[in-house]
C-alpha cells in the first residue's frame, strides 16, 4: 500500500493525523465542535480537557466508530478505510466484559485479526508476535491466564500489548493511565517513549495535568472546541489551561510548578 504523507508546508515534516471541520453531536448537542487538528508525525501527544470535553469522542469519531455530523479525517493523507493497518487503537479498559472466557494471549492475538482478514485463523507466527508484545509490556508470565484474573493495571497492559502487536504507525489510546497502579503507569510510559523513539506517533487521552508535561511533548487542549494545540512547552500554559478548564486555575499553577514546566 503506498502512502503519500501530507506535508506540512512550513517545516516539511509529515502530518500523521489531519482533522478538518469535525463535528459530532449526541441528541443535537455537539460533543465536539468544528475541530481542526494537525498531529505531526513522531510526536507523543496528550489530548487534555475536563470531563465531557469530548476527548474520547474525538478519537472514536476519527476511527469512524461513531457517526460524524460533519468533517473529514485523514491519516497520512488518506481516509481511514485505506490505511487501517497503519492505525492502532486502545479502547478504554472498562468498555469490555473482562469475564469473557479467553486468555491474555488470545486477547493480544486479536490485534492481528484485522491484518489476517476474514476467515483466516491466527497460527504459530501470530502466537509468537503476541508473545513478543506481551514481553514488551512485562506480561509474558500471564500469557495463559484467564483475563478475569487480571488486575486493572494488567488489563490495561494487555490492551496495550494488543495495540503493539498491530505494529501501526500511529496509535490512538483512550485513557490508558486511568486508575492504574504505579507498575503499569511506568510500563506504559516506557512503552510510549519507545514508540516515539521508533518514529511512531502516539495520541493519548489523558486526565492528569500533573504528569502531562513530563510524559508528553505535544498537547491538544480540548473543551468541545480546540483551545490550543502544539508543543507542550509553548501550549501547556496557565492561560490556555484557564481557557480549557475555567476557574480552577490556582490548582493548575501549582501543578505546573511540580511538573517542572519552568525549565523551558
Amino acid at each position: 500500500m503506498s502512502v503519500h504523507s501530507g506535508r506540512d508546508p512550513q517545516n516539511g515534516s509529515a502530518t500523521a493525523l489531519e482533522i478538518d471541520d469535525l463535528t459530532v453531536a449526541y441528541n443535537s448537542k455537539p460533543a465536539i465542535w468544528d475541530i481542526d487538528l494537525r498531529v505531526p508525525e513522531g510526536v507523543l501527544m496528550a489530548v487534555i480537557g475536563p470531563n465531557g470535553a469530548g476527548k474520547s469522542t474525538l478519537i472514536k469519531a476519527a476511527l469512524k466508530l461513531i457517526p460524524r455530523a460533519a468533517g473529514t479525517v485523514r491519516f497520512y493523507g488518506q481516509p481511514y478505510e485505506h490505511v487501517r493497518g497503519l492505525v492502532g487503537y486502545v479502547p478504554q479498559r472498562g468498555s469490555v466484559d473482562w469475564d469473557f472466557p479467553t486468555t491474555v494471549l488470545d486477547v493480544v492475538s486479536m490485534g492481528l485479526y484485522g491484518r489476517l482478514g476474514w476467515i483466516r485463523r491466527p497460527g504459530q507466527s501470530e502466537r509468537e508476535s503476541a508473545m513478543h508484545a506481551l514481553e514488551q509490556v512485562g506480561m509474558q508470565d500471564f500469557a495463559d491466564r484467564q483475563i478475569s484474573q487480571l488486575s486493572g493495571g494488567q488489563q490495561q497492559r494487555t490492551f496495550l500489548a494488543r495495540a503493539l502487536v498491530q505494529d501501526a504507525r500511529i496509535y490512538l489510546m483512550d485513557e490508558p493511565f486511568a486508575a492504574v497502579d504505579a507498575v503499569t503507569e511506568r510500563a506504559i510510559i516506557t512503552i510510549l517513549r519507545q514508540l516515539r523513539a521508533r518514529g511512531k506517533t502516539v495520541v493519548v487521552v489523558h486526565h492528569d495535568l500533573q504528569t502531562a508535561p513530563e510524559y508528553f511533548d505535544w498537547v491538544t487542549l480540548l473543551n468541545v472546541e480546540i483551545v490550543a494545540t502544539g508543543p507542550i512547552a509553548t501550549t501547556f500554559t496557565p492561560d490556555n489551561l484557564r481557557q480549557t478548564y475555567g476557574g480552577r486555575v490556582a490548582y493548575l499553577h501549582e501543578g505546573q510548578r511540580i511538573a517542572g514546566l519552568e525549565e523551558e
Partner: protein
Amino acid sequence: MFFAPLRVPSRIKTFTTTMTNHTSDRRIWLLITATAIIAALFIPFSQLVLHVEYDYTLRTVALGGALLGIVSGVLGCFAVLRRQSLLGDALSHAALPGVAIAFLLAGRDLGLLLIGAGVTSWLGVFFIRLVTGTTRIKQDAAMGIVLAAWFAAGIALLVYIQARPDASQAGLDTFIFGQAAAIIERDVRLIAAVGAVSFIVLALFWKEFKLITFDPEFAGANGFRVNLLSMTLSTLIVVAIVLGLQLAGVILMVGMLIASGIAARQWTNQLGQMVILSAVFGAFAGGAGAIVSAVDADIPTGPLIVVVAFLLVALSLGFAPGRGLVWTLLRQRSDRRRFAAQTILQDLYHYALDHGRADLPAPEPFLLGVRGATAREGLRQLHARGHAQRSNGAWMLTPAGIEAAARDDRNHQLWSLYRQYADDLDLPTIAEDRQQDIADALPPAAVAKLEYKLDTIRNAATQ
C-alpha cells in the same frame, strides 16, 4: 520456599492455585467423558427401573431432543456471552405470529410454518436493534415491548384460526408449549441439516464472532463489519430457536437456548471449550429429558428437557472448580485459616519480643481478648503445624515457630523498604504482594540491596 512453614497443606492449596489451560483442558475431557458415561448408564437405568420402552417414537424424540440440545447449546453460548439471554426469550415469543400467518397463507406445512416463525422472529431482532440504535429506549425495554406485542399478535391470530371450521388447524397451539410427540424422522433430519449449516458458518467466522462478542469497538476500528456480523450471529440464534419451537414451544425455548451455555461457562475459561461443553450438556439434557418424559405418556417433553438442563446449571453453579459455590466457600475457609495463622504467629512473636525473649508465653485470655475467633483459629493452625505449644493457659512459639515468624517478619520489612526506597535504590518496578516471598519477586541483586538497607537501618537504631 521462604514461607514453607506457613504454606497451607497441598490438599487445600489446590483451591487457591490459579487455573491454567492445562488443568482446564484435562478437566473438560474428564467432564465430557463423565457425561458420556452417565448418559450410557442412563439408558439401561431408564429401561430397567423406569420401565421406559424404546419404541420408534421415543427414539425419534430423544434423538431430536439431543440434536436440538447441541444446536441450541452451541449458539446459546453466544447469546449468554453477548448478554442477550433475554433477547432469545423475546425472539422465541416473536416467532408465534409467524406460525399463524404462514398457516393462514399456505396451510399446514411444517417447513413453511417454521420459515414464517423465522421471519417474524428475525423482524423482532431487527426491530429491537432499530429501536435501541435510533432512540433513547434501552434494550431491555425494547425487548420487553417486542416480546409482548409479537406474542399478543400470535395469540390473537391463533385464537382466530382455531375458531375456523377447518380441521387442519388442530394442534397449531402446540407451538406455545411445544409437543415432542409430534416430532417425526423428517424433523430430526431437518434439525441435523440446518444445525450443520449453522455450525459451518460459525466455524468459518469463529474469529470474527469471538472478536465482536468480546470487543465490538475494537472490531469496528479494525475494519470488521460489526453490524453485519452481529446480525448474522443473531440470525443463527433465531435459527436455533425456530428449530426448537415444535419441541419446546415459544415460551420455554429460551431455557434450551441458554441453560447449557451457562452451565458450561462455569467449568472453563476458554470460548472453544465452553461451546463444546455446552453442546455436550445440551445433548444430555435433550436426550435425558425426552427419555424421562416417556415414563408416562402424560408427561410433557419440552418442560422436562428444560428442567434437566436447569439441574445441570445448578450442579455447575455449585460444584464447578474455581467458580462454583462449594469451591468458593472452601477457598474462603482456607484463606481465613491461613491469614489467622499468619496473624497470630506475628502476635505471639512480637508479644514475646516486646517482653524480652522470643519464646516467652502469651496468656491465652489475652490473645482471645485481642483477636477473638481469629486467635482460636490461628492457634489451632499453629499448634497443628508445630509452631506453637500451650502450657499453663499460655501459648509460646516453638523453635520452628520462631524461625517462621522471624522470616515472615523480615519479608514484611523488606517489602516496606521496597515501597520506600525502590526509586532510590534503582530497583525494578514490580507489583507489591506481601504474601509472596520478596526473593521470588525480585532478582537476587535487588534483594541484596534491600537486605543491606535493612541491616544499615537496624544498626543505626541499635547504636
